C-alpha cells in the first residue's frame, strides 16, 4: 500500500511537473491561437457583425449561408481567381529560381559564395511593406528605374501597377524576387546533404551533368522541395501586403487577393462572412499542402 501510494504521488507529481512547464504556453496558446481557430469556424456559421460586439444576443445562426453567399459575390470570385493565379504561377517560379541559384552556388565553380548567399537572402528578412514602397518607386511609369533602364534598349515600359494586364504579373515577379532567397538557403542545405559518393558513382557510370541533375539531384532533393513548396504556398495563398501598399487591389480588382477581400469584409463589419472566407483560405492551404505531399513524396520506392 505504501508503495502504491508513493507510486501514485509519483505519477501525480510527474503530471504536475509536466503541466507546470507546459501550462503557461498552453493557456496562451489555447486562448490566442487554438481557441480563435475554433471560434472562427463557429462565427462563420453566424451573421455576426461589428454591431453585435455590444449586443451579443443579436447574433443569429445562419448555417452555411455565408459559404453559399461566397459564390454570388463577384469580388470573391475575382479574388479567388487572382489568388489562384498568384499561387499557381508564383510558387513554381519562386522554386525554380531558388533551385537554379542554389545549384549555381553549389556547383563548386563560384567564388565568394557567402556574399552571394547573403545578397540573395537579403529581401527575405526585410519588411514587405518597406519593399512594396521601394518597388512602387522603381516601377513608376515615367521616372522609375525599371522603365528608364528599359528605355536604354528602346523599350517603352508600361505603367506596370496601373495596367490591368501587368499588375498581377508584376506582383508575382516581385514576390518571387523577395522569397527566392528562402528556398535557396533550404535547397543549399539539401544539396549539401546529398552524399558526394553518389555523384562519384554516377560519374563513373558515365552519367552526364544533366542526367545527374535529373536522376540523382532532383530525386534526392524531394523532401527539401516538399518543405519549400509547402512553406512558400502557405505564404503565397495569404498574399496581402503587396496589393495593399502597391495597388490597393486595383486596377479594377485585378490584384484583389482573398486575404485582402477578407480584410475588407472585416473592415465593413461583416465578421461572420469574413470568418467564412478565412476558413476557405485555410481549407485551400490544407488541400494544397496535401497536393504537394502527393506530388513530391518519394514515389521512387
Amino acid at each position, binding site marked *: 500500500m505504501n508503495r502504491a501510494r508513493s507510486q501514485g504521488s509519483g505519477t501525480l507529481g*510527474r*503530471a504536475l*511537473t*509536466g503541466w*507546470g*512547464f*507546459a501550462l*503557461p*504556453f*498552453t493557456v*496562451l496558446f489555447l*486562448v*490566442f*491561437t*487554438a*481557441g*480563435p481557430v475554433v471560434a*472562427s469556424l463557429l462565427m462563420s456559421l453566424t451573421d*455576426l457583425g461589428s454591431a453585435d460586439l455590444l449586443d451579443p444576443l443579436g447574433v443569429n445562426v445562419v448555417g452555411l449561408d455565408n459559404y453559399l453567399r461566397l459564390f454570388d459575390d463577384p469580388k470573391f470570385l475575382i479574388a479567388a481567381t487572382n489568388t489562384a493565379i498568384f499561387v499557381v504561377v508564383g510558387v513554381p517560379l519562386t522554386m525554380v529560381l531558388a533551385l537554379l*541559384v542554389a545549384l549555381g*552556388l553549389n*556547383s563548386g*565553380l*563560384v567564388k565568394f559564395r557567402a556574399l552571394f548567399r547573403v*545578397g540573395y*537572402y*537579403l529581401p527575405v528578412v*526585410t*519588411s*514587405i*511593406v*518597406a*519593399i*512594396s*514602397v*521601394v518597388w*512602387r*518607386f*522603381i516601377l513608376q511609369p515615367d*521616372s522609375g*528605374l525599371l522603365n*528608364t533602364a528599359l528605355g536604354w534598349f528602346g523599350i517603352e515600359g508600361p505603367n506596370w501597377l496601373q495596367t490591368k494586364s501587368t499588375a498581377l504579373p508584376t506582383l508575382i515577379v516581385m514576390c518571387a*524576387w523577395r522569397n527566392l532567397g*528562402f528556398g535557396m*538557403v*533550404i535547397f*543549399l*542545405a*539539401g544539396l549539401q*546533404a546529398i552524399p558526394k559518393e553518389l555523384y562519384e558513382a554516377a560519374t563513373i557510370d558515365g552519367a552526364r551533368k544533366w542526367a545527374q541533375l535529373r536522376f540523382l539531384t532532383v530525386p534526392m532533393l524531394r523532401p527539401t522541395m516538399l518543405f*519549400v513548396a509547402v512553406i512558400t504556398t*502557405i505564404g503565397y495563398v495569404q498574399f496581402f501586403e503587396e496589393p495593399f*501598399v502597391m495597388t490597393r487591389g486595383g486596377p479594377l480588382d485585378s490584384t484583389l487577393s*482573398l486575404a485582402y477581400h*477578407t*480584410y475588407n469584409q*472585416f473592415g465593413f463589419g461583416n465578421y461572420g462572412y469574413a470568418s467564412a472566407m478565412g*476558413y476557405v*483560405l*485555410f481549407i485551400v492551404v490544407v488541400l494544397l499542402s496535401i497536393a504537394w505531399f502527393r506530388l513530391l513524396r518519394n514515389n521512387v520506392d
Partner: protein
Amino acid sequence: MTSTLDTVAEKPTPPSRPTRRLGDDLRSRDHVARIVLHVVLLGGLVVMVGPFIWMALSSFKPEAEIRADPPTFFPQDATTASYDVLLNRLDFPTYFTNSVVVAVLTTLGNLLFCSAAGYALAKLDFPGKKALFLVVLGTIMVPSVVTMVPLFVLSSNLGVVNSLAGLILPFLAQAFGVFLMRQFIVSIPNDLIEAARIDGASELRIYWQIILPLCRPALATLGILTFLASWNNFLWPLVAATTEDKYTLPVALALYAIGQNQTRYDLLLAGSVVIVLPVLIVFLVLQRHFVRGIATTGLK
C-alpha cells in the same frame, strides 16, 4: 599471364595527345562555365540588392530629385531633410518604440514559454501530452486571416484593442516555437537529465541549468525568427492598432503610403530605411547563424 601483364602495362600509357586535348577541352569548358555562372549570379545579385542601395541613397535626396525624370542614382544634392521630418514632425520615434517593445517582448515570451513547453513535451510525462502536441502541430499551418476576426472580438472583450498588450498577447506563445524547441530538446541525451535527477536536482533546475544552456543554438534561431516576424508583422497590428500612437513602423508606413493627402515621396523612402536598417544590421552581424539556423530548421 602475358595478356594480363600486357593490359596492365597498357593502361598507364594511353595515347598521350588525345588525353591532353580532352583535358584542355574540359578545363576550358569549365572556365567558360565559371565565367558565365559568375556573370549571371552577379547580375542576379544586382537585382536582389540594388533596390535596397537605391532606397538608401534616395532617402538622402530632396523630394524634387526623387520625382526627377530621368531618375538619378546617386543623390545630386544630398540632404537629411526627410529624416528630420520623420524624427521631429511625424511620430516616427513613437512607431519605432512601439515596434521595438512589441518585437522584444514577443521574442522573450516565445523563448521562455516555448522552451519550457518544449522541454515538457520532449522529456516529461504527463497526461494530455500527445493531445497538446497534436493540437500545436495542427495549428502551424493556420493562416493569420483565419484567427483575425475572433482575435479582434476577443481583444475587444478583454479591452486590449489599440494597446501594445493587444499587439503582443496573440503572438506570445506560437506553435512553431514549441515545435522547434521540442525537436531540439528531444535530441539531448536522457542520461544527462537522469544524472542530474539522481544528484537531486529539481526539474526547474534541470531546465534552467542543463536544458537551456544546451539549447542555445535553437534559442538563437527561435529568437531571431520571432523577432523578425514580429518586426515585419503587418496584418494584426493594422487591425488592432486603431490610433496613431499605437502604430508599429510597417502600419505607419503603409497607411502613410496609401494616404489620401499628398504623400511626400522622400518620407516614404526614409521610412522604409528606418524599417529595414535595424533588421539589416542584425542580419549581417548574425548572418552565419541565421542561414544555418533556418536551414537546419528546414531539414528537421
